[in-house]
């Protein structure tokens, strides 16, 4: 089933605004959106989640170091006394929520999309191999010293 480019970017923007405003108290305004993105910037962590169903692909979440380092304490509202929490687990969950919101948005037209489980990798170790013919949709936000990017990659079959 074909999803239009406009719908995908709309879903990415809606999910980013919803998640980062509600959980991370960040204002992802239009002004913070980076134009002409090529993902040339350095990130720190990459979260990846695959999906299948009426179409197949992956959702990727990239965040700069400060966001990840401060995420649990400053943004998620989880305090230092909560023991045993790991940045990676928090970032996995953030990826899960962003991807879930995008896929839910895209499935509003009757599309059935089944979401996989999240994986987190350091940006330096991240090596993305995608099928030839895949389509990539990227949106990046930059504010203060922080950067967030979301990619949706749709496989050709």
């Amino acid at each position, binding site marked *: 089933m074909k999803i239009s480019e406009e719908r995908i970017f709309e879903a990415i923007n809606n999910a980013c605004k*919803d*998640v980062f405003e*509600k*959980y991370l108290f960040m204002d992802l305004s239009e002004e913070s959106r980076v134009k002409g993105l090529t993902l040339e910037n350095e990130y720190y962590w990459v979260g990846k989640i695959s999906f299948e169903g009426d179409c197949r692909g992956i959702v990727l979440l990239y965040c700069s170091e400060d966001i990840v380092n401060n995420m*649990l304490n400053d943004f*998620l*509202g*989880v305090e230092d006394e*909560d023991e*045993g*929490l*790991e940045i990676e*687990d*928090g970032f*996995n*969950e953030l990826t*899960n*929520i962003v*991807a*879930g*919101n995008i*896929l*839910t948005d895209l*499935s*509003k037209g009757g599309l*059935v*999309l089944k*979401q996989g*489980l999240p994986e987190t990798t350091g940006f330096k170790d991240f090596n993305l191999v995608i099928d030839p013919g895949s389509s990539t949709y990227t949106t990046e936000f930059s504010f203060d010293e922080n950067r967030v990017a979301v990619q949706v990659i749709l496989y050709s079959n």
Partner: protein
Amino acid sequence: MYNILITDDSSTMRALIKKTIRLSGFQVKNFYEASNGKEGLEILSKNWIDLVLIDINMPEMNGIEFLKNIKSNELHKNIPVVMITTEGSDLKVEEAFSYGAGGYIKKPFTPEAIKKTLTDIIGEPETVDRDDGEFDF
């Protein structure tokens, strides 16, 4: 005082849910935590639980399978279940309700959303020592 089981594969999310429930004013005797449905069933078999919160997307045994297990068990079928998940599509919501879920909260949730859903299911939280009724995060 409630015994609440939170089933989510993310320890961060379990901590956030616990904190949000406490801030909502619900008097909780014990929070039990499970990272998948299998662990959840084990906890249910050994403890008195008043409310179960379940994430759908989990390894080992996912939330829908866990919900079906609870609702098909004579001992547990009357325990209220609330799904807390990113998967808010109509199909998923309908599926969860068809298997007996009593409520549904979509991530990212607000403290108000948690309070409203839990109030609908287990009643108003007892009065707490807060004068503004607002949540501080």
